[in-house]
């Protein structure tokens, strides 16, 4: 059991090597001649105006928030799916009702206009 996770741990430790080392090698192989114009922010040849990290449309944030609600609650259903054979019929319907409440949430967000791209 623990040995199975050792592999994942070793993988996380070593996986950065495969993309990382070629990038380092390429860094030494490639020329390095920076100048002011080359290092400019690319904006189709026009000088960039103002700060990049600006306020943006709140709609993007809305979708991220809706995603968060759904993803967290769906993850709760995985244990339910695994214990499915041991569950009494009541347990199955409890899970089904949980999903239907989620569905209600989705319809509520829909009605509120949170899912509209305006």
């Amino acid at each position, binding site marked *: 059991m623990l*040995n*199975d*996770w050792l*592999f*994942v741990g*070793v*993988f*996380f430790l*070593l*996986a*950065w090597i*495969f*993309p990382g080392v*070629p*990038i380092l*090698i*390429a*860094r030494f*192989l*490639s*020329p*390095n*001649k*920076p100048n002011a114009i*080359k*290092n*400019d*922010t*690319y*904006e189709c040849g026009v000088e*960039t105006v103002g700060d*990049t*990290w600006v306020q*943006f449309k709140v*709609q*993007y*944030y809305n*979708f*991220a928030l*809706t*995603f968060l609600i759904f*993803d967290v609650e*769906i*993850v709760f*259903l*995985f244990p339910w*799916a*695994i214990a*499915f054979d041991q569950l009494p*019929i009541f347990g*199955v319907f409890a*899970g*089904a009702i949980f*999903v239907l409440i*989620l*569905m209600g949430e*989705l319809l509520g967000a*829909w009605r509120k206009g949170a*899912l509209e*791209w305006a």
Partner: protein
Amino acid sequence: MAFFVDPIGFIIFWLRGLLSGWGLAPGVVEFIMDALGVIAIGSFGLGFTIFLIWVERKISARIQGRIGPNRVGPYGLLQTFADIIKIFTKEHITPRGVDVAVYNLAPVLSVMAVLLLWAVIPLASTVVGTEINVGVLYIVAVGSLGTLAILIAGWSSNNKFALLGAFRTVAQMISYEVPMVLSLLTVTLLARSMSVTQVVAAQDVWFILVSPLAFLIFLVSSQAEMGRAPFDLMEAESELVAGYQTEYSGLKFGMFFVGEFLHSFTVGALVTTLFLGGWRGPGAEQYPILGIFWFFLKSFVIYFITLWLRFSLPRLRIDHILDYNWKYLVPLGLMLVVLTAVLDKWLFMVNPAINPWLRALAQLAMNAGLFLFANFLVETRNRRKPLRQPVGAPRPVARPPEKASITEKAA
């Protein structure tokens, strides 16, 4: 003889015996075996990508009526090596004002996220990185690392195009994770286990037949997760230059592409494992090498389908993409989970030793019914309130002067 039946399993067994024979402690042997396994998977992944790039270029060329790479080596097979040599010697430009640490982390992370997925995919009955008992959840968790890589690439680049690409990533890729997790939940329900090897073992009848809707939802949402056409909004060339990778150059830029190419094949491998019975096929139990063959055959079929989709469909508009996800795929996925659970419980209560084909037939009928019902709802809504047609109304158009124009003369 054992070598030809199961080469990889044989080598693993031999190495383990060799290391133990040197008198190393079992823990150290385990660690060395894991490290070697990781190196094998990682090198295989990157090496395989070189081949995949050629495959993709060739297939895309054929779909678009071109020939594709055909100069360097037989059938252009060595074209990718030439490209790699070129990209290794390209300058790494770091623009002013980028967040250097995060900027350099992003390409590494985008490849890492895909490679990590291969840790739990069983290639044959004896060849699997690790058999963790929450494999499906691991796929969900690691899969979203790729989204994170694109997000931080766009954010750290200090470029407005890149930032817009990152915003679109938030809206699109994150949204499509919800139906993906729902279809994975359906698979978990049907297999009664989150372990990927157990999921493969449970597929006496392939899950594509038991739950075709889950398969379709997974295919569509993973196409969106890959960020490829028709869902390639985050790097839309015609609108955002190159999206999140605008400010990257040299091999850092290349690594994003390695990640993307490998991801599209990994999706094929995931679909194979979860819906097409993984390595299972005639003779795969006795001869694991046949299992590897079946696995790659099925993966390439799915890979070809994703490429076919990519090169046939135009890019969608962002509101259409989000509507399709939140107002169609998510409710469909939720209803699919509920109905699959209730139906499966009922079937197993009526007859605990139900024939898997009978169960598949019942689930298939339920899937078809649900799909027809969803279709009916969409049709009804479209009839009641037609889709918005912003370009339908007549608008002032620049016209040629009243005098007879050249075209009329010609007519």
